[in-house]
């Protein structure tokens, strides 16, 4: 049987009424936990594991896959409407999405996120079915030095893409790096900058920082402005739906986001966030409307949202073909497989083709269900913005606090939430961008660890960083992204300079 036959057979398995029901429960639960900051799909799947023990393997894995996709979908809603990212993968969505929502374009922002997620999920799931073995080979070529080069590229593109001033963006990024140093050093097991506080041993939780910086900081900022604040947020201006121009600007961003997110999600040390950062930077560079970036550009929502859903499918590539869990949710799904005595890995496609293809097919169905579930809700969601400001922000504070306590029930964590909220407020007052702090906290440790691993393996020989072809190409692209604008500027080519100035700083 060829791939197509397997897939059709899988669709038959997934289309059984009971399996459809499991998929529906999964996507509904997933959307719900994606909306709540702090409570992620990983925890939900973990809680459901004992419950699903009685179900058949196919049904419960289908439900888990639904939760996983649903979580990626739901995270964008609060990012866009409330500037409170529900998941770390939807932090970037808040940047442009929330600006759009405030300008009365929350509807199109939610729609492009939902349709973008659907398109990306569809393409990436098909890619999972068709080219998984090839992608896995590519992912395994990535060792510490290649990852380090990828991080360098991410830093260069991301730091130029956030904020109006490069200097301010870099300052924020380095605040993030400084926070990232706190905790146990992964390579030596020694503690750094934790000052004997046990709660700091594991470093600072990304979701705590993101929720604090975005939600708490924002609430303080609005509260501090009192009645002098900006005019009431317009809930809807124009149509709730995407207009012709929105479509024209979105579809390329969806495809590019998918192309970036899928392979990075498939890499064992990739993760969904990096794909969204790179996608945002790419869209900002390629857009025809650079003046809109920072003020609500639809590409800045469409690209990263497609990227995070594509990477969710990408994560399943190493899980199904190698038994490699690369995210917390994947790790628990692996535990789910093992619960039924199935060992994912190179043999799973051969020993349990029915299950694997049933899972892939149900991902397609879950993806479609999510679109059906979410699009009609767009009109309802944007009504959230018409809630009077004091109530709305009180609600945001409540959700942010509940989510943080939910993820880690500790007083210290709550203290950190408040402290970082104040930091976010102060940075807003002085015009420093918030997102690079979170980016620094996520990418800083990854870059550091990969660099040190590469150097440890080579026993201190720095040249290994450049001698791998993939690493060399990535570093060259990074260097070009850094140097070319400088050269163009030096030559003083007026029009190019003006265009770049608009997108650079």
């Amino acid at each position, binding site marked *: 049987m060829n791939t197509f036959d397997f897939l059709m057979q899988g669709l038959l398995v997934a289309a059984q009424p009971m399996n459809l029901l499991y998929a529906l*429960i999964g996507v509904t*639960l997933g959307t*719900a*936990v994606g909306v709540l900051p702090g409570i992620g799909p*990983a*925890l939900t*799947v*973990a*809680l*459901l*594991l004992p*419950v699903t*023990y009685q179900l058949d393997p196919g049904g419960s894995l289908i439900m888990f896959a639904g939760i996983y996709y649903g979580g990626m979908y739901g995270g964008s809603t609060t990012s866009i409407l409330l500037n409170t990212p529900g998941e770390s993968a939807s932090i970037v969505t808040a940047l442009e999405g929330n600006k759009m929502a405030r300008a009365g374009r929350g509807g199109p922002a939610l729609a492009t996120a939902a349709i973008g997620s659907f398109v990306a999920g569809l393409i990436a799931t098909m890619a999972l079915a068709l080219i998984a073995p090839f992608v896995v080979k590519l992912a*395994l*070529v*990535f*060792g510490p030095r290649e990852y380090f080069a990828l991080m360098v590229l991410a830093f260069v593109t991301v730091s130029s893409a956030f904020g109006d001033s490069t200097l301010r963006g870099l300052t924020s990024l380095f605040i993030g790096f400084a926070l990232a140093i706190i905790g146990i*050093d*992964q*390579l*030596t*097991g*020694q*503690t750094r900058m934790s000052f004997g506080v*046990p*709660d700091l*041993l*594991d470093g600072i939780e990304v979701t705590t920082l993101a929720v604090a910086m975005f939600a708490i900081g924002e609430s303080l900022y609005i509260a501090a402005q009192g009645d002098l604040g900006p005019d009431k947020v317009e809930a809807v201006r124009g149509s709730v739906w995407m207009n012709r121009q929105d479509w024209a600007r979105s579809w390329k961003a969806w495809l590019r986001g998918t192309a970036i997110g899928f392979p990075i999600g498939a890499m*064992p*040390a990739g993760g969904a966030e990096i794909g969204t950062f790179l996608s945002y930077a790419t869209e900002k560079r390629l857009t025809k409307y650079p003046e809109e970036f920072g003020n609500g550009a639809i590409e800045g929502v469409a690209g990263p949202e497609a990227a995070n859903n594509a990477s969710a499918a990408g994560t399943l590539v*190493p899980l199904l073909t*190698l*038994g*490699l*869990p*690369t995210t*917390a949710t994947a*790790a*628990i799904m*692996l*535990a789910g497989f*093992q*619960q*039924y*005595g199935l*060992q994912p*890995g*190179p*043999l*799973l496609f051969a020993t349990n083709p029915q299950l694997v293809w049933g899972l892939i097919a149900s991902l397609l169905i879950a993806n479609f269900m999510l679109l059906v579930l979410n699009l009609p809700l767009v009109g309802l969601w944007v009504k959230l913005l018409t809630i009077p400001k004091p109530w709305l922000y009180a609600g945001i504070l409540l959700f942010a606090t*509940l989510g943080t306590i*939910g*993820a*880690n*029930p500790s007083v210290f964590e709550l203290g950190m939430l408040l402290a970082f909220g104040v930091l976010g407020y102060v940075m807003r007052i002085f015009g420093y961008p918030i997102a690079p702090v979170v980016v620094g906290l996520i990418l800083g440790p990854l870059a550091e*660890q990969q660099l040190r*691993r590469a150097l*440890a*393996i080579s*026993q201190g020989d720095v040249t290994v960083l450049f001698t791998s072809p993939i690493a060399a190409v990535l570093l060259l692209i990074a260097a070009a992204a850094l140097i070319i604008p400088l050269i163009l500027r030096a030559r003083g080519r007026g029009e190019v300079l003006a265009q770049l100035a608009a997108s650079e700083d």
Partner: protein
Amino acid sequence: MKQFFLASILAGALALPAFAADYTIIAPANPGGGWDQTARSIQSVMQQEGISGNVQVQNVPGAGGTIGLAQFASQSKGNPNALIVGGYVMVGAILTNNSPVTLNDVTPIARLTGEYEAIVVPADSPLKTFGDLVEALKKDPGAVSWGGGSAGGTDHIAVGLIAKAAGVDPTKINYIAFSGGGEALAAILGSQVTAGISGYGEFESQVKSGTLRLLAVSSAERIAGVDAPTIKESGLDVVVQNWRMVAAAPGLTDEQKTAVSTDIEKLVKSASWQETLKTKGWQDTYLAGDAFKEQLAKDISSTETVLKDIGLVK
């Protein structure tokens, strides 16, 4: 809180009857890891076998379990319904993190399961046997890079013990710590490191499909169904078991201790627990009472020695 919150959603969604909690188990790690799976297996078996009407699992992740341990010791004092899952990794983490709370501050009940370490190389590696690997290590310790789990964890300790037994300076080993088994496995499969070390379960399917070559396992005797010699057979006296245990709160009366021990014994003897062990690939290494206490003390002192040798503990 979150368990309560989500559990109530789930209970509502699936119309499960709600009982009062009999046991609360702290899994001092993120969902998905070994301790979390152990805690959740105890949960489902206890409920299935009717040992306890309702069992809650709470994740308190961080710092090799020491954060969960510290919270458990301070908040559950004298509570006969509170349990915590832990293991060998915690022994090392307490030492490397200089944790103020140690296993002396809780009431260890029993060792439940264990997993032995496996040493693998990529299929195209020139190293054919464990002896080849040891030879390479003796020639130039730095040139042999070992990929495994977190620094100071079981994998790292095992490499330190191997080096020491082979007469190589343990401070010279080139151990590359990865977060989680998945990332380490990818680095080994991609030939980024010379050799890999982790629990056998992590490598099982790769070994069976022939992409990794299994050189040795760290058990005292050969494991049934696993085609590899022990490290001991190669002349190095190294046996490492990554065990997992369950402990109760500090400050319990003797009757309370006995009650918990009895429940755990019922759990271990039950058919569904044995079934769980089989599907998860865990070895039954149940050990309770004074025998466990003795073994624990021995493990703690030998771990301290090797961590000092590697240079992780001053």
